[in-house]
């Protein structure tokens, strides 16, 4: 059920872990009379459409203090929800946060507009390796907000060594009944392709057929296809190996030292969430100012402290403590990351095909 997909699941744990940092929200800024009017003669308001618990504790109040613009944040749970909402016409959002594949979809569907880089000087803070991705060459339409990578979360005491291959999830009965896979059809097929030594994109049909056979063979050993609540299943001892995002596992690692995370040696899928301005945004100047503020080093640091996802903001990362910067779950080793790829949007027909393959696997 998609209500629990996306980044929103069980952020409670790290809120506790970082509770100290969260104290001291200063609302005085909100009531300051005569705050400076926003640039461009727009009314000092902004509608921000974001994932749940995906912003710093004080970020919106700090932005209001700095610019006078009042940010009204609404939440979505999945990219599909975001897409469906904008598909019927922009209901008034100024800034949205789609993932990489959906930046392509929305560009193709003409739902987002080009950014004016001259209004976003803080782009200089972004790590150069994030400045020219395939899904948005030279960052015309989007700026990176966070990134995340799929890997294997595991219970150290129940697993032999480090399960550093997709084999343990897709092609082995060593941990039968103790495996949970993510129920995202495209992700499953792409990672299985990675295991077979192919790129995650342009998977040839015969390899897709092979993957289908492999997953049908593997299914009896799989406990469940989870709805991005894999971290809970791992934490409760329901399973010992789980396909999950690094940020989700990093959160439960602060609760249970017996949990580990590894990006398999074959490489994996990287996802990145991006700040975009939808077509028809009522206040584009405020939107640019807000995006620029989120890329600020100090603001970025406060966001990362709360959400614990890897940041593409080099200046903000430099301000973060050692325990974040050198956490192998948040920032997996460079040699493995070099083998990871973004999943490209390959058309509606491909999405339908992958969906049907996984439906067949689950019905088999």
């Amino acid at each position, binding site marked *: *059920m*998609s209500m629990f997909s996306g980044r929103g699941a069980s952020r409670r744990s790290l809120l506790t872990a970082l509770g100290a940092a969260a104290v001291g929200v200063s609302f005085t800024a909100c009531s300051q009379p005569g705050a400076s009017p926003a640039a461009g003669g727009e009314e000092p308001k902004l509608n921000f459409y974001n994932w749940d618990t995906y912003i710093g504790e004080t970020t919106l109040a700090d932005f209001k203090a700095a610019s006078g613009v009042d940010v009204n944040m609404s939440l979505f749970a999945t990219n599909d929800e975001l897409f469906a909402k904008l598909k019927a016409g922009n209901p008034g959002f100024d800034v949205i946060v789609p993932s990489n594949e959906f930046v392509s*979809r929305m560009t*193709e569907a003409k739902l987002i507009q080009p950014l004016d880089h001259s209004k976003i000087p803080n782009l200089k803070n972004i790590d150069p390796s994030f400045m020219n991705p395939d899904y948005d060459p030279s960052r015309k339409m989007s700026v990176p907000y966070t990134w995340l990578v799929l890997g294997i979360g595991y219970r150290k005491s129940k697993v032999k060594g480090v399960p550093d291959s997709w084999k343990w999830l897709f092609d082995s009965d060593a941990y039968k009944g103790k495996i949970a896979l993510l129920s995202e059809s495209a992700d499953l097929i792409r990672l299985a392709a990675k295991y077979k030594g192919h790129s995650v994109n342009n998977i040839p049909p015969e390899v897709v057929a092979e993957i289908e056979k492999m997953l049908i063979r593997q299914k009896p050993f799989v406990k469940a296809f989870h709805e991005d609540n894999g971290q809970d299943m791992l934490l409760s001892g329901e399973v010992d190996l789980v396909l999950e995002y690094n940020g989700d596992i990093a959160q439960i690692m602060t609760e249970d030292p017996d949990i580990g995370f590894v990006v398999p040696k074959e490489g994996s899928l990287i996802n990145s969430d991006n700040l975009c301005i939808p077509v028809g945004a009522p206040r584009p100047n405020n939107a640019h100012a807000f995006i620029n503020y989120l890329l600020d080093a100090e603001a970025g640091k406060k966001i990362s402290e709360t959400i614990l996802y890897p940041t593409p903001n080099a200046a903000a990362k430099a301000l973060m403590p050692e325990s974040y910067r050198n956490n192998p779950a948040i920032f997996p080793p460079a040699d493995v990351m070099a083998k990871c790829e973004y999943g490209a949007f390959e058309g509606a027909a491909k999405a*339908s095909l992958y*969906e049907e393959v996984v439906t067949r696997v689950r*019905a088999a």
Partner: protein
Amino acid sequence: MEQHWKSAKGLFGAVLGPPLFWLVLFFMIPMGIVWLYSFGENRGLTDIALTGTFSNYLRALDPLYLKIFVKSVGIAGLTTLICLVIGFPVALAITFAPPKAKTWLLLAVMLPFWTNLLIRTYALIAVLRTEGYVNQSLEWLWNGFGAVVGVLGLGALGPFQPLELLHNNFAVVLGLVYVHLPFMVLPLYSALDRLDTSLIEASLDLGAGHLRTLLTIVAPLALPGIASGVVITFIPALGSYLTPDLLGGPDSQMIANIIERQFKRANDWPFGAALSFLLMYMTFIAIALQAMLSRRRREPA
């Protein structure tokens, strides 16, 4: 006194108007649009061309999807049967309870309704999972029993093997029964409550046993209640997607899960619409069967 509607046309229209308007605007028209989508094709990422094609229905009749339909009907049918078997004695007990207790018992049946479905489902997860309450209690009993056996010198019992209660079809049926039981109990109760108790007394006086009275007197008289209970349990159970999603195992997908994925992840609204309408046709068939059944009963035999 009953009045024919034609003699108060204005009043009748005023009363009927708003709900009819509501029904047309928020039910018939949206459903009509989805129905039209089921004859359409995707054009690009955001547009659907209504071409009048039957290809979506043909695809939905593929053995892959038919098998999932059959499985869904099986799971919903089993759920309904279990609800009937459990719900009938409960409804009977409430009927014969003292009037004061009756209110409280009915409240107890409806109480879970006031809790969100998602919360109830998550509560079931906490009960059923490997380290959940059921397995923890069993482990405690097992260890206690093992200690006794050990003291008696009869050899060790070995470590406790937790039961696999969650993430399989059993958990799905259990969850559906748990959620849908009130749907069965309430119509059964309303049918049984209207029952003329003198018929039961007559049957018992004339020498029939309790079981025979139940089967040949009470059950036939309660048949309309049973039929409507079966229908309003079966239909939502057939379309459930949250329960199989959260409690099910790798093969527990039901047709509503497929429909959800077509509308969201696969972004294939025409195909999702075709699957939805096949599900709806099955619902109509179930309602028609129930209507036929109750009409046959009303006709003098």
